[in-house]
């Protein structure tokens, strides 16, 4: 359950069967000033879930989000939202976009900035009150945006995303610059949202990605390196760490990393057998955890 003081709008609560929405990219090349950053990207997304977009710096994640949001026009290929070309205004009304830049106009207080975007969105001040409550930023309302900390700025920026419900949420690094507690709250909020919305979510935090993502879109050198269920990803090496007492002489001290004895296995199916063997030998196991994140391989 979210730690946010306010509820999601009623229409954002998961209710019954989700409406069907679809993002479709066919052979999309896109970039800046004629220079291609993305090349030949094709995928279809239609199941409500969090799709984590991963890739090293400069791989093209932000370019992908900007292309999906209709900010960049593809050089080749097509982007369709619910079958409507992204070039048509109608398709934009199905998207909500959070950039990695705050995008709050200079010279405005937080309350004014949210009202500014509410005006652009065509929604009333009641929606501003609602998102202020949702993100717990009541005390920030009278402050100038420039006076806020990075984390507070991010919260205000995220609040704007919830001014109006959309079917598809494009969230480019929503938890960057946030402290762990707030990052957790945002993740909880996004997880609730993903129950009946399509959410594309980019992050550099692989543990966060693994925690919330159902699908992974890995971008590498502007191309789609992997698209599939995160649960189907296997690391090249499957290594677990065992924190235990009485393991001296049973587990090699050479394999110890901090408090954990590292063991390389062929896969997670071997874990129960190993644990049983160790217990049978009198080892008191305190913790077993995966040491390798399969998502790391997508960065290499």
């Amino acid at each position, binding site marked *: 359950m979210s730690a946010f003081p306010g509820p999601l709008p009623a*229409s954002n609560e998961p209710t019954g069967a989700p*409406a069907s929405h679809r993002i479709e990219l066919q052979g999309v090349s896109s970039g*800046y*000033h004629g220079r291609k950053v993305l090349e030949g990207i094709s995928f279809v997304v239609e199941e409500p879930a969090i799709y984590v977009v991963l890739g090293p710096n400069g791989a093209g994640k932000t370019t992908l989000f*900007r292309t999906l*949001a*209709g*900010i*960049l*026009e593809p050089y080749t290929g097509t982007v369709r939202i619910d079958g409507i070309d992204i070039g048509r*205004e*109608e398709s*934009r*009304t*199905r*998207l909500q*976009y959070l*950039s990695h*830049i*705050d*995008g*709050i*106009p*200079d*010279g*405005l207080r937080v309350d*004014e900035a949210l*009202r*500014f*975007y509410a*005006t*652009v*969105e*065509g*929604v009333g001040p009641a929606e501003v009150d609602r998102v202020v409550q949702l993100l717990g930023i009541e005390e920030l309302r009278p402050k100038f945006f420039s006076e806020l900390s990075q984390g507070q700025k991010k919260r205000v920026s995220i609040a*704007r995303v919830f001014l*109006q*419900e*959309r*079917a598809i949420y494009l969230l480019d690094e929503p938890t960057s610059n946030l402290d762990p507690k707030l990052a957790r709250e945002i993740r909880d909020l996004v997880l609730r949202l993903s129950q009946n919305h399509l959410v594309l979510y980019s992050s550099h935090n692989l543990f966060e990605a693994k925690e919330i993502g159902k699908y992974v879109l890995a971008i590498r050198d502007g191309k789609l390196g992997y698209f599939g269920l995160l649960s189907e990803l296997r690391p090249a090496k499957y290594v677990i760490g065992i924190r235990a007492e009485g393991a001296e002489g049973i587990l090699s001290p050479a394999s110890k990393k901090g408090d954990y004895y590292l063991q390389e296995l062929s896969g997670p199916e071997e874990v129960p057998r190993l644990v049983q063997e160790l217990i049978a030998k009198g080892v008191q196991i305190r913790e077993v955890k995966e040491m390798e994140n399969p998502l790391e391989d997508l960065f290499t």
Partner: protein
Amino acid sequence: MSYPASNDRAAGTFAMAGTTIRRTAVIGWRFLAIGTGLSLFLSLVLLAAGKTSATFLTTFPLELPFFATLGSMGGLMTFTSDRTKGVFEYLIAYGLRPRTLFADGLLATASMSAIILGLSLTVGLGAAVSRGVAFTVDFWQTIAFYTVPMSFAGGLFISTVGMIWSSVSTPRTGINSPIGIAPMLGIAPSLLVFIVAEAAPKMYFYYITSGAAVAIIVAVVGLLALSARLMGRERFLSPL
């Protein structure tokens, strides 16, 4: 799930212009204050120092466009700031077109010019009336055919050039930037038109001034149409 209708969004775009004008007055308040202050100060000096009302009648209409142009720089400042801060990225994602962003900036610029012009004319003419200045037909014609059109044309011209310039370059601050250079370039059209009109026979004065204002406005519209058509949307993204 309901989606905003396009007429709602059009209303939003219209209402956004009001916010932009207000923000421009906040962001560019120093230019606004200097433009208005200098204009009022010089008007009052002309009235106080002039031995005859002729000094006021000939100089007052000619100085206003320089200060109106100077004071309208907030429009360009707001545009550049919005681009750098990533505001345009959101607005384009909401479906706004680059030409709307340009138009919004120009509307803000024209509003600043209108504020300075309105204040200066009200205070300057009020003070002149109180000093017993008798206004001539020539004076009113100069106001109508030079002062008012050139006050708007000068600001709109330099805002357009500045917006295009800042869109095709890496945003910089300081004097060696579009905003730094704009005030100096901005008064050039008014000055040039004034020099040419003064050098020409008197009978051509109003043709030259009003013709120049129309030509500048046409150039502004042409530049906007061309740039909105030729410039990719990535030109409006923050380089940050």
